């Protein structure tokens, strides 16, 4: 009787790429629910458009490259769609999510060779692309609902909904105003207040929702806890430092967490394994770098939220991080950094 020949190991753990992706998508649910609650069904429409176009784009690329369609089942296209969709303003016109998803799949993913090969986070690359190309619709968020007044009922009823500045936008645009004046104006009843409290409240709840999803991922060991921790700690320390220097000028640390996409990014974006540094140590530096860049861009850059650009910049640096953060291998006294010594030794021998 002949038996089949296989190479060891013959056993395999239970994890699979598609399961990992499924779990991440699942962990996005609290965030999606919160976003929909506060900003209306536009979020869901965006998500449908991004995931649909991402899947279509992936399928056609695979067809064109004459690959089989198996990778469609790995959920990575859907995940990219979801991660992009939740970043887009609820009131964005349909071509924003569609062109964003196409950019993510075609330019950011398949141009580099598909899953596992892309140096940049596709969702963030698409977001940056949209922000640069269509700055106006990309920064126009509808006014957030408050607990008693759901904005999407309004929109369903055809009430023309207002737009609201996001907290970070408002802070940016406060100009030379003192922080105390800014907050006083926010509390005022004037219709021209720079930041509607509803917006701030909404973004705080949404951040909490992302935190819940992120905790789930850590619990399930889908992501390492080091990354979000280092990232959020960097945000806290750096922003607190600036705030300590001049609290009337720099944003208070809590604003960096409550507003914008920092918490979301901590668990769902910088943890993207493909475009991150690959070693544990490298990832810690990656998270640190993104954190420093986010605060710097928010404070001195020309965009209100710096997450996308920070992530892309650090994606760029990831190979270098891997290069310098190689772990110490068992039986060696020192870690080897760089590609260096080993091959050089080899060359010397040849001489």
């Amino acid at each position, binding site marked *: 009787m002949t038996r089949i020949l*296989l190479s*060891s190991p013959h*056993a395999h753990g239970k994890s*699979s790429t598609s399961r990992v992706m499924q779990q991440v998508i699942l962990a996005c649910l609290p965030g999606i629910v919160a976003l929909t609650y506060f900003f209306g069904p536009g979020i869901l429409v965006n998500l449908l458009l991004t995931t649909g176009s991402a899947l279509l784009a992936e399928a056609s690329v695979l067809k064109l490259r004459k690959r089989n369609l198996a*990778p469609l089942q790995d959920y990575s296209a859907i995940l990219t769609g979801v991660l992009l969709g939740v970043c887009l303003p609820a009131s964005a016109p349909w071509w924003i999510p569609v062109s964003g998803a196409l950019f993510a799949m075609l330019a950011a993913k398949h141009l580099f060779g598909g899953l*596992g090969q892309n140096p940049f986070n596709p969702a963030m690359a698409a977001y940056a692309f949209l922000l640069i190309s269509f700055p106006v619709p990309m920064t126009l968020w509808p006014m957030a609902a408050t607990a008693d007044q759901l904005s999407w009922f309004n929109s369903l009823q055809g009430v023309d909904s207002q737009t609201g500045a996001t907290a970070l936008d408002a802070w940016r645009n406060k100009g030379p105003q003192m922080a105390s004046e800014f907050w006083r104006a926010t509390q005022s009843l004037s219709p021209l207040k720079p930041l509607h409290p509803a917006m701030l409240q909404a973004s705080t709840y949404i951040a909490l929702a992302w935190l819940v999803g992120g905790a789930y991922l850590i619990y399930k060991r889908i992501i390492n806890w080091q990354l979000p921790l280092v990232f959020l700690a960097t945000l806290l320390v750096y922003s607190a430092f600036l705030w300590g220097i001049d609290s009337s000028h720099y944003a208070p640390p809590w604003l960096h967490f409550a507003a914008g996409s920092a918490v979301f990014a901590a668990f769902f974006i910088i943890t993207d*394994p493909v475009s991150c540094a690959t070693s544990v140590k490298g990832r810690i530096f990656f998270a640190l770098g993104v954190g420093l860049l986010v605060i710097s861009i928010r404070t001195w850059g020309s965009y209100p939220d710096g997450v996308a650009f920070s992530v892309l910049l650090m994606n760029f640096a990831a190979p270098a991080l891997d290069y310098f953060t190689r772990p110490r291998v068992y039986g*060696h006294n020192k870690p*080897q950094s760089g590609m260096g010594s080993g091959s050089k030794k080899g060359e010397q021998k040849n001489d």
Partner: protein
Amino acid sequence: MATTWIKRTFHGGIHPAENKHLSSLAEVRVAALPKQVVLPLSSGNGPALKPLVEVGDRVKTGQLIASCSKGFSANLHASISGQVIALEERPLVHPSGLNVASIVITSDGQDTPYQHPAYPLWQEATDEQLLEMIQQAGLVGLGGAGFPTSVKINGAYQQGIKTLIINAAECEPYITADDLLIQTQAKALLDGIAILQRLLKPQAILLGIEDNKPEALAALETALSEHPLKAALEIGVLPTRYPSGGEKQLIQLLTGQEVPSGKIPLDLGVLCHNVGTIYALNAAVTLGQPLIQRLVTVTGQAVSQPGNYWVRLGTPIQDLLDEAGIKETSSKKAQRLIVGGPMMGFTLDSSDYSITKSVNCLLLPTEKELPLPGVEQPCIRCGQCELACPAQLLPQQLYFYSANQAYEQAADQQLFDCIECGACAWVCPSEIPLVQYYRHAKAELRQMQAEAIKAEQAKQRFEARNARLEQEKLDREAKRLARAEAAARMAAAKKAAAEKEATETEASQQTSQQTSQATASKAQATQAPKAVANNTALLKQLKTAKAAASVAVRKAEKTLSNLEVNPDATPEQMNKQREMIDKAKEQLAKAEAKLAEANSLQETTQ
């Protein structure tokens, strides 16, 4: 001493389903005496043994039938009594599936033992006698590695060791041979350790056992409580985590030390032996029993009576499977016969093989039990493999370089520190057969290394040949010069004689012109050999000068061509470089002219 619960850990590791209960609950059985055994003369590594019997010879159980003069391979003994019926190539249980020369013996059914000397009171034997017994008995590491035990022990004996480690971790899922051996033979095992203690005098003796074997641990503790080793042996209970029984990991767990890369444990003063080996060693010394049988776990859900069997070496695997009973429930496609455990074992294409010294387990899983590997997906760089790797490598990087055939970079990422434990592949969500890539890369690198060595040797041979030819040429030259010198001397002597005659006979007609001529020619004659010698030295100098000049030209030209392709080079730099080339060329021309001149001079003087 005592039992300690080890808190130290090694990096990574995994918890695959153990499935040890399948085989550990059954009593140890003795497999039926085989009708025929096939005993290979080589284990696949190390030199082959020389057979000491011929076809037709009758042999007894335990009789030495093949040995290695240098002792690098372990002796081979007949595992049954009967007749040698063939000495031919047979397939060997080995990952590479090679055929090796083997001795085939048919049983006479008697199992008549061959009497070897024994030392039931081994304490009275000398060290030399003990070492000799161990060497004779044909012991190898029974944990699966199969390295000759006497080589290891002799090395340790000569060098001295600090720590003796007994490996009873048995971290591979499914395998329970060591577990059952300890449960049933704890006393004999301790005796074996005592023999090694006496021989090697280690400062510490540590036994590592995973905490998933409470019965074995209890048996050990009971036996130890009334054993002379009581004060010396320390049992370290390890948290169950694969691969805690890997030699390097076990040393790390028990001593906190790491075996330096490229070194062996002995370099740390550590000697590691598997419990099975120690048991066999005790049998060899106290009973005079060479290694002719071993405990084999036959397990998997496709086996009707899984359990541990004492099996004579050379027993056909099919016989053993028949005895244990096979129920093939999987589809044909999924039927596997794994030698060793699910993590590091290798598959056989059929059961037409025979049990060797290193077969510790036969695993026949069903498809449901160990599913066939899924489709390999791209690496998503999730880093799970890094977290699992006990060697603290970056498996994802090793994979990246190996898959892209950048073998040298893979080696630079310390590919050779990979112990092929398979933990990375086990966790990989993309189901990449990582270990397969590493094995391939290692094989390629070894091949490249072998080729580099060959090329280097060829180069050296070529250079040696050139040097020889050069030397011969020089010798010839020297001879020629010597001849020329002699000739010149003779000519001078002749001339001098002629002059003398002339002066004598034609003294009256002597003119001032003649005198001057004679002195001139005399001077020339005496000078000739000196000139020749000077000339050779000069020639050599000129030759080197010329060579140096041409090297300078070539270097300058190379720099120029580098500059030409370099976008940053300025025109000034280029011009300067061109000037340098011209200068170098001038020098070369000068050197060449001088050399030519000297050459022609040399020719004329000869």
